[in-house]
């Protein structure tokens, strides 16, 4: 069975819940993607940029100190070493080259913390697109440096003043722009969310993480790992890692959500605390109140701060293929410190959720092999962590 099906469903999740006005744009993206992804010219160009420009393949690094400390074997897939500092560039390059083949002139994107926005601004500068990035006013205030980075790269950052003025509203605003400027514009979504075909396209472009990891770990240890661990916001780095191992039934998937201030308080754990709903084009688990109004997500890690989650994760959860767990703000900071001190690698706060979870699993899994997606580097989060520590004193 190949997923998603023709209608964009992963089992009971996914689909295309969109205003009629968007149906033509989505069909154009879907048809073009199906055609273009097979062309050797496209693959050649994308591979060229992935390797020469972005820095693929990324190393799989055996973290000896951390492994000794925890009593398990930890391999880190070093997506943090990519250009712009996170896995986001894999998808940004893939979709931007697609947009180029489609003949589009302008790219729009939503961004929360600004990581996806920076990746998009980067590839737009590289490939000569006009670039507009929608960002919630609240996020602009919290992420001044990334706003400036995007501007330096030549992108325009458009403040979003609707709703909660954060990522979900930036996403809605990007859709509104797209509806209005269909013919010239490509909407480059940053995660495995939104209406079909986006969850499929973003997963495909991120699957390079899992494909490389699989052959690297086989080469290094001659067997598959016991666990794959990755953080889940919208879910693109985790799905990129998990998907190529889907058929390796013995490899267990652990997706780590952000429980923010706690699972019974403000959090971003859509899979653990969300209810089935229809949000921004897809049927999935969504943080919402009893009347179906979407709630604001909270996590110290800005990249996990989204009230929905990719429909394929919802599917993995329902069929039991992946297990989803949660780590709170405080624990994430502990994970952040742990990797920095043991290995000299400062991880992104998002990634720190996955790192911390190793500590929780270690006692019952002595000598087991854990392959972790180190999805991004943590320079961007230094201010947040400093303020967090100050407030706890």
């Amino acid at each position, binding site marked *: 069975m190949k997923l998603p099906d023709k209608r964009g469903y992963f089992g009971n999740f996914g689909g295309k819940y*969109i205003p*009629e*006005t968007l149906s033509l744009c989505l069909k154009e993206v879907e048809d073009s993607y199906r055609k273009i992804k097979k062309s050797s010219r496209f693959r050649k160009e994308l591979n060229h940029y992935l390797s020469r420009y972005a820095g693929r393949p990324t190393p799989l690094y055996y973290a000896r100190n951390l492994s000794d400390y925890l009593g398990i074997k930890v391999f880190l897939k070093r997506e943090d070493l990519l250009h712009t500092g996170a896995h986001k560039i894999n998808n940004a390059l893939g979709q931007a080259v697609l947009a180029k083949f489609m003949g589009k002139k302008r790219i729009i994107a939503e961004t929360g913390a600004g990581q996806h926005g920076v990746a998009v601004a980067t590839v737009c500068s590289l490939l000569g697109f006009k670039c507009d990035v929608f960002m919630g006013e609240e996020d602009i205030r919290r992420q001044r440096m990334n706003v400036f980075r995007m501007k330096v790269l030549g992108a325009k950052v458009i403040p979003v003043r609707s*709703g909660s003025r954060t990522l979900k509203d930036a996403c809605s605003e990007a859709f509104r722009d797209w509806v209005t400027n269909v013919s010239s514009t490509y909407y480059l979504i940053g995660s495995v969310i939104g209406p079909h075909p986006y969850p499929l396209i973003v997963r495909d472009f991120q699957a390079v993480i899992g494909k490389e990891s699989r052959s690297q770990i086989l080469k290094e240890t001659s067997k598959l790992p016991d666990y794959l661990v990755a953080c889940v916001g919208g879910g693109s780095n985790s799905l990129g890692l998990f998907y190529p191992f889907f058929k390796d039934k013995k490899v267990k998937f652990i997706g780590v959500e952000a429980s923010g201030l706690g699972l019974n308080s403000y959090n971003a754990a859509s899979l653990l605390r969300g*209810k089935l709903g*229809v*949000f921004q084009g897809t049927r999935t688990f969504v943080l919402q109140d009893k*009347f*179906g109004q979407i709630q604001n997500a909270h996590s110290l890690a800005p990249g996990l701060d989204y009230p929905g989650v990719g429909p394929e994760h919802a599917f993995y959860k329902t069929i039991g293929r992946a297990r989803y767990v949660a780590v709170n703000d405080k624990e994430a900071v502990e994970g952040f410190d742990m990797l920095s001190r043991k290995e000299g690698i400062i991880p992104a706060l998002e990634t720190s959720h996955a790192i911390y979870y190793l500590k929780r699993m270690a006692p019952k899994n002595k000598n087991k092999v854990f392959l972790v997606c180190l999805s991004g580097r943590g320079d961007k989060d230094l201010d947040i962590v400093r303020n967090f520590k100050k407030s706890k004193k």
Partner: protein
Amino acid sequence: MIKIKDKFRQLQKLNKKAFIAYVPFGFPHPSLSRDIFLTLRDSGVDIIEVGIPFSDPLADGPIIQQASNLALKNGANLPLFFDEFNKIKDTVDIPVAVMSYYNPIYRFGLKKFIKKIKEINIEALMLVDLPLEEAEEYKKSCAEAGIDTIFFITPTTSVERVKRIASLTEGFIYYISVTGITGPKNLQLQNLARKIREIKRITSTPVCVGFGIHTKKQVKSIGRFSDGVVVGSEIVKFIAENYKKKNFLKTLHKHIKTLIP
């Protein structure tokens, strides 16, 4: 209680076009909704389109976004909507259609929702983000309950799609005048007329035009080639600017009258 179909028949006999007014429920406050809807009826509106406020209205411009937010802030929700409409269901003698995003209804339960609106004499349902690909169960449930399903057609909808949409639509087709969100500034009447004529060649279902209609002049000219118009942002904006003033309902009544030819 009158079916939308019959309303259009009545209008046709009088050689008139439908004036459809959109206002979100609970805006500006749930306690004002009943009076606002009764005022719309008294001002000569033919069909009322009542919006269910949603936190993330993807297809709406700033005016309706703000109105939805205010309604939610002031406590608008589905149970309150059912209660308030129940109180006026026998007084409102024109058809009422509900316009909503899917999630509040999905959360409530589609079948349960349809049963509820049937009880309060609502004639039709239109779901902004439920395109025809996802509409099978919805269409079936509405048909069983005798609720009309209104679908949208836009300038970018292909002829093939127009045919499929027309076959699922009951009541009237909602033609969105522009590729964009609610409340646009410029309408190009010539293109619009051509598009509507194309659709009318395909289906005998009435076609009404919405998005970007602000003046009586527009209402009149669009009425020449369509079966009616939907006015939304214009009325919502008027309410937002005037509801705190004295004699608000009277001025609303007058304002609606200035929009109807």
